[in-house]
């Protein structure tokens, strides 16, 4: 295919992406330099880099950054371990039952995140099933506090994202070389040794992929925190995204919120650029 045809075919997509992704991103940098509320949205006032400096000095921004990091630090490893374990077990059962299990396991991941969180929250309402179990086990009522809300956000995070790792690992296991496993059996390798020396190296690239995707997703947790905390600051469970949202909608500092979003983008880019460079090289080789 020649260059002209390529651009004619790809034009609609390129136009949409540049009009609605590249330009907005550049605009966000510029909007971040304005003092802007919903009242003066058409006539913002230029303040230079003051918003960016204000964000970096804002203790609540760093607080939400710390919670986001904590969330990622717990949810991402938990997802990998649980997902891999369940995928190994799922690989053991017959094809027909697998399909049923997979449909069930996928549900938390494909359901509307807002609805999933709401259903999760119903368990912990004063009349909820989990609140009741909590009371029977610990003999105190379950109530919303900074600790318990943070714990709920994290537990929900694990419940919500694990299916992704599970399915990816499961698909990876299906491409495992049977010859290698048989050879290992010949040599008398135990099951554990096979997992350790054959399966784990086989899924290494998948693990890196899941790691990358789930760190990116952890960066942008929003829906679950929005429902579980009701955006109430007393729980101190803001993530970067909810704090940005709050700055924009509740506090109505649109300029500052834009600056915050841009700083987040910069932070993500630092993690992302090595990966982008790597896949750029891969693509160049592949063509």
């Amino acid at each position: 295919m020649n260059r002209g045809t390529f651009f004619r075919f790809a034009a609609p997509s390129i136009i949409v992406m540049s009009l609605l992704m590249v330009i907005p991103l550049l605009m966000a940098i510029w909007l971040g330099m304005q003092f802007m509320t919903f009242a003066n949205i058409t006539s913002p006032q230029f303040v230079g880099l003051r918003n960016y400096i204000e964000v970096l000095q804002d203790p609540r921004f760093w607080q939400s950054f710390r919670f986001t990091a904590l969330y990622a630090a717990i949810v991402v490893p938990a997802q990998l371990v649980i997902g891999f374990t369940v995928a190994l077990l799922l690989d053991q059962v017959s094809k027909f039952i697998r399909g049923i299990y997979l449909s069930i396991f996928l549900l938390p991941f494909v359901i509307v995140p807002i609805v999933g969180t709401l259903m999760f929250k119903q368990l912990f309402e004063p009349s909820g099933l989990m609140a009741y179990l909590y009371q029977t086990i610990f003999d105190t009522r379950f109530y919303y506090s900074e600790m318990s809300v943070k714990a709920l956000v994290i537990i929900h995070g694990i419940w919500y994202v694990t299916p992704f790792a599970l399915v990816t690992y499961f698909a990876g296991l299906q491409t495992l070389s049977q010859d290698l496993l048989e050879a290992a059996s010949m040599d008398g390798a135990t099951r554990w040794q096979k997992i350790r020396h054959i399966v784990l190296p086989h899924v290494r690239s998948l693990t890196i992929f899941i790691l990358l995707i789930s760190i990116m997703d952890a960066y942008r947790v929003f829906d679950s925190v929005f429902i579980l905390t009701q955006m109430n600051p007393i729980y101190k469970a803001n993530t970067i995204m909810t704090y940005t949202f709050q700055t924009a909608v509740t506090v109505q500092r649109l300029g500052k919120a834009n600056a915050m979003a841009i700083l987040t983008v910069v932070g993500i880019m630092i993690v992302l650029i090595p990966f982008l460079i790597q896949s750029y090289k891969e693509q160049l080789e592949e063509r």
Partner: protein
Amino acid sequence: MEKVKSPLGRLSIHLFLILFAIYSLIPFFWTTLQSFKTLRDANSRTPIFFFTPTWENYQTLWLRTVPENGALIAYFLMLAIVILICLLLFANYMPVRSSLIYGFVFLGFVAILWGIPRLVEVAKFYEYFINTIIVTVGTVVVSISIGCLAGYSLARYAGYAGVVILIAALGFRALPRLAFILPYYWIGSATNLLDTHLLVILTLVAVNQPFAIWMLRSFFMDIPRELEESAMVDGCNRLTAFLRVIMPIMWPGIVSTALFTLLLAYNEFLLVRLLTQTNWTLPVAISRFTGGEDPRHLTLAAAAAVSATIPIILVILFFQKNLVKGLAAGAVKG
């Protein structure tokens, strides 16, 4: 891996998987129970598992007034929906062209959705449901049609520009949506498009485009070049070869991509929340049920949550294989 043979081992594997299934399902199970309870039962401090189910919550959610001949209308609608679904399932075995049947089924569903508000007095929730359908269908159609063109050309063009676009798309896919949405709000208020379906659809298409072109491209790569090359020797040009030869065999890939696009549009909360004031979709409407002081919201929220989940469950039941394949193949690439 070879299978575990010992009966005890097999038993514990199944036991563990069942426990994990319970863990996955328990919120759904509980919320569904709650949605069929009266407010009194639902607020009981000790969980009630046996009770006489009531449709009251669903009625309050969907209808403004309950019509006298409600049961009759409900049976009639159910019958119509079952007939349409059966037509859809057996379209390939009918003596008529299947595209005609698909068209008929589509029109049938539109007619039902259009007809319901004329038969009964519906509540606001129905309007949000219709909004969701418009936004979802719009996003899928636009996104897939421009995505196919781009994905195809990216799969076939070997030049430098293609790689640059792919990598840029990958980068944009990883960025938090909020970075784009705040400018969208500004664009929306400058062009007076806030609170319209058009703005929501266009922005969702843009947000979804990087994912769509990567996934479609990986499916197009699997189709051998010889196919369209021989068609072009036979006198097709690039576009007709693409439309007549490539697209017909691309359906599985398109279905997978469309499915993820559908989920994205159906699930989106933040973007719709910021860009609309009244024309909400379901996630935004449902988020209104939480945190309200009104105690009735407990069971209403449960009913709303279950209502919004039923379409998703249908999607999983019909397309589980495509979902898994898509997650494994397309998603692996980005």
